[in-house]
């Protein structure tokens, strides 16, 4: 496979847009096509405004037949196409291509079928994540993955990014909760990946498609699994004198055979950042706060909470508080869920990172990030999906000050490379997009990147779907000066591993 060129660079010069538009207009009504800069400006970036590009065209198809027509025309005229959901992505995955079109699936926003007996919902890709749970609530069911942006983000975008949330450890990410995706390929063919019946024959293309960042096809229908809402849920909020001890508490909880519904850690800086914003009564003197949620039957929850509290106390928690009501549970969570808006209040700009590390290295990683704060002259607060090792450092900066954007990006890149060195990954749930494409050169060998290109070619032989994202070219890796560094031996060979 390494003999072939990477397909991820769109080749072939500027497409003939006039002929392309003639073809598209046969099937797509004028009100679904945006052309002028005044109309397309809103599509120049997603939730990561550091990366912008004005698209030539934006399509807003209203049905699957129009999606097919647009993609066939793109294929026939070699027009690059960038799919877009709600535009809340955090890695620039929906940044347009300068010579291409954006296809927004926002209008495919109907819940097509909700089957409370089989516990499934079939929804259009433009349906908002939270809207699924809202529709299912009447039946005592919900859709488990809950990214913080769930009031706005769409299920199509969740599929593209394999979105997670704060309940992943127990209930999984998007990849664990989607049963079937109906996909339009760049050739305008419709394929069904997965099924409501278990173990669809053939290769596991469904799970390879989930998290493929709009580079393999466009989803026009998604079947999700709904689960019964637990009868009760309560949160323990604990203060610790160090992040290491909070991490140790997590280790003890999991060693005891408990899989909490949620397990979130905030460092002192994050706690002090959000408290004035949410008034959750957080302990401002704690070095770390751990939120641990139990759900199930009331009795089950009560038993688990007792065990969790005992384990936290043993490790050295200085203050423990258990939510006494649903209102209080939501208050405890409010700070964690509002970490990003709170950052926006105390700093003109912030940059959210998304590395994952083996949890046992948490103390070392936060220590190194603290050193980097001094090195880059910027503050960084940390929120951490402690159960699954997913770290979200928030770098605070001011884009109006010369050089700060570049410095924030360099700081972020240094954090990601630290995650790789620790045996982790550059992205846990936000995706690579355009943002982390240089770090892909550090995490993967050329042959591994070629294998990604091979998957890409199998779905999109012309390299037209979301080009230039995720898979860096050889030239890009050479220019970035990154050679793959960590393969062949374990990082930190002196660390005990059992």
């Amino acid at each position, binding site marked *: *496979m390494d003999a072939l060129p990477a397909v991820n660079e769109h080749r072939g010069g500027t497409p003939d847009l006039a002929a392309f538009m003639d073809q598209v207009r046969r099937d797509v009504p004028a009100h679904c096509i945006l052309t002028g800069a005044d109309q397309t400006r809103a599509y120049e970036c997603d939730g990561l405004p550091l990366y912008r590009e004005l698209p030539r065209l934006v399509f807003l198809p209203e049905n699957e037949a129009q999606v097919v027509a647009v993609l066939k025309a793109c294929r026939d005229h070699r027009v690059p196409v960038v799919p877009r959901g709600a535009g809340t992505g955090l890695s620039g995955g929906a940044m347009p291509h300068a010579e291409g079109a954006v296809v927004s699936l926002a209008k495919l926003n109907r819940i097509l079928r909700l089957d409370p*007996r089989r516990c499934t919902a079939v929804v259009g890709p433009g349906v908002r994540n939270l809207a699924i749970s809202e529709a299912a609530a009447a039946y005592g*069911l919900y859709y488990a993955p809950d990214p913080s942006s769930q009031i706005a983000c769409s299920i199509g975008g969740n599929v593209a990014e*394999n979105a*997670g949330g704060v309940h*992943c450890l127990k209930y*999984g*990410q998007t*990849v*664990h909760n989607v049963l079937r995706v109906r996909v339009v390929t760049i050739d305008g063919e*419709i*394929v*069904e*990946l997965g099924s*409501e*019946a*278990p*173990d*669809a*024959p*053939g*290769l*596991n*293309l469904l*799970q*390879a498609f989930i*998290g493929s960042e709009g580079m393999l096809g466009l989803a026009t229908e998604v079947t999700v699994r709904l689960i*019964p809402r637990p*009868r009760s849920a309560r949160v323990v909020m604990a203060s610790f004198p160090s992040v290491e001890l909070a991490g140790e508490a997590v280790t003890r909880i999991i*060693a005891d*055979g408990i899989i909490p519904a949620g397990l979130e850690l905030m460092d002192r800086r994050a706690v002090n950042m959000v408290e004035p914003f949410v008034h959750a009564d957080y302990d401002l003197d704690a070095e770390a706060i751990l939120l641990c949620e139990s759900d*199930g*039957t009331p*009795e*089950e929850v009560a038993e*688990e909470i007792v065990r969790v509290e005992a384990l936290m106390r043993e490790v050295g928690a200085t203050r423990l508080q258990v939510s006494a009501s649903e209102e209080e549970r939501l208050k405890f969570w409010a700070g964690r869920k509002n970490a990003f808006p709170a950052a926006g209040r105390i700093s003109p700009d912030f940059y959210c990172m998304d590395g*994952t590390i*083996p949890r046992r290295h948490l103390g070392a990683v936060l220590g190194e990030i603290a050193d980097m704060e001094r090195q880059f002259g910027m503050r960084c607060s940390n929120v951490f999906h402690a159960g*699954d*090792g997913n770290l979200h450092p928030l770098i605070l900066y001011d884009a109006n000050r010369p050089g700060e954007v570049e410095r924030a990006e360099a700081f972020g890149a240094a954090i990601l490379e630290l995650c790789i060195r620790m*045996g*982790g*990954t550059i992205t*846990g*749930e*936000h*995706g*690579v997009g355009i943002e*982390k494409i240089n770090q892909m050169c550090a995490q993967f060998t050329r*042959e591994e990147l070629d*294998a*990604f290109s*091979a998957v*890409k*070619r*199998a*779905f999109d*032989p012309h390299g037209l779907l979301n080009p230039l994202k995720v898979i860096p070219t050889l030239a890009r890796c050479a220019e970035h000066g990154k050679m793959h560094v960590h*393969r062949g031996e374990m990082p930190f060979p002196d660390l005990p*591993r059992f």
Partner: protein
Amino acid sequence: MDATLSNFSEQVARARATGRPLVVRGGGTRLFYGSPLPPEDSFDWLDMSGYSGVVHYEPTELVLTARAGTPLAEIETLLASRGQMLAFEPPRFGPADTFGGCVATGLSGPRRMASGPLSDFVLGCRLLNADGKVLHFGGEVMKNVAGYDVSRLLAGSLGALGPLLEISIKVAPRPRCEATCMLDLDEQSALAACLDWRAKPIPVSATAWMTDPNGAGGRLSVRLSGNESAVRDGMSAIGGERLAEADAGAFWRNLRDQTHDAFRARPLWRVTLPAGAPPLAQGTLLDEWGGSLRWLDGATDAAALRARVRAMGGFACLYRRDGIPDEVPTFDPLAPALLEIHQRLKREFDPDAIFNRGRTYPEF
């Protein structure tokens, strides 16, 4: 490179040079599964059983990494020593079972209805590619979206894209408590009951419905797993007669390992259906997974069975084909556009088609 890996690479290079394909094997216990093997003198074995050993186990991070040839029993014993397990409860076909074979075939056991399939637990892997190079995808962390999810693509791939060398898998704590109830119900009532429990917070971790040997309507066995109070609440919601612990253990082990009498039928069909599908009324021996997995006896008219199952939204796999000619495909045919993607993937990963040619579909 490790000497065993160098040997594998040499074998791959030789296969490509001579055009003589390879069939990957671990302990050989799962070779019955998939399309029939080519004639014995037409291929060479790529034997992974010597590439063995647990590389890393971190109980408190719920992850284990082991080489493909590691005996499955060794892994499960190690996990049990720390109160953990493989949540998808893979079948064991014998002491020669390997971890690689388990992941490459992708078969899950009774607990799949609660835990999700094997592929849900795959976190990372190393693949030997057609150039004899070792590629690493995913890793040992729960959340990882860097690049496409090639590790999960390889789970259950029957070696079609190349041999797995090493797999990292998410492990789970053993439930604190388990109990099995038995209810006398005919198939239709049993399926309706299972569907009813599905939408409720009852911790059902396995179900099995079978015809009653005494000729009555049938018997549904239900396993509940969780903490003590959740299991107790579940039992009172479900009712029926509780099976003694030792008998329950043996019963679910027999189903997991497919040593129960229901698995003796030949040919044996493995049919999967969406939740809530009605009885097939056609040689059903055993329903698992709340009715989403059905084991069928005897149906020799494969085309008729497949058409019927497809109309219900499911799939029919000719699981044990003894007596059925090789021309009858093992798996349901793929739609043309989907088959084309499969063929392109095969050409990209294995341009000379040396790995497990035809083991999934004759076309690749």
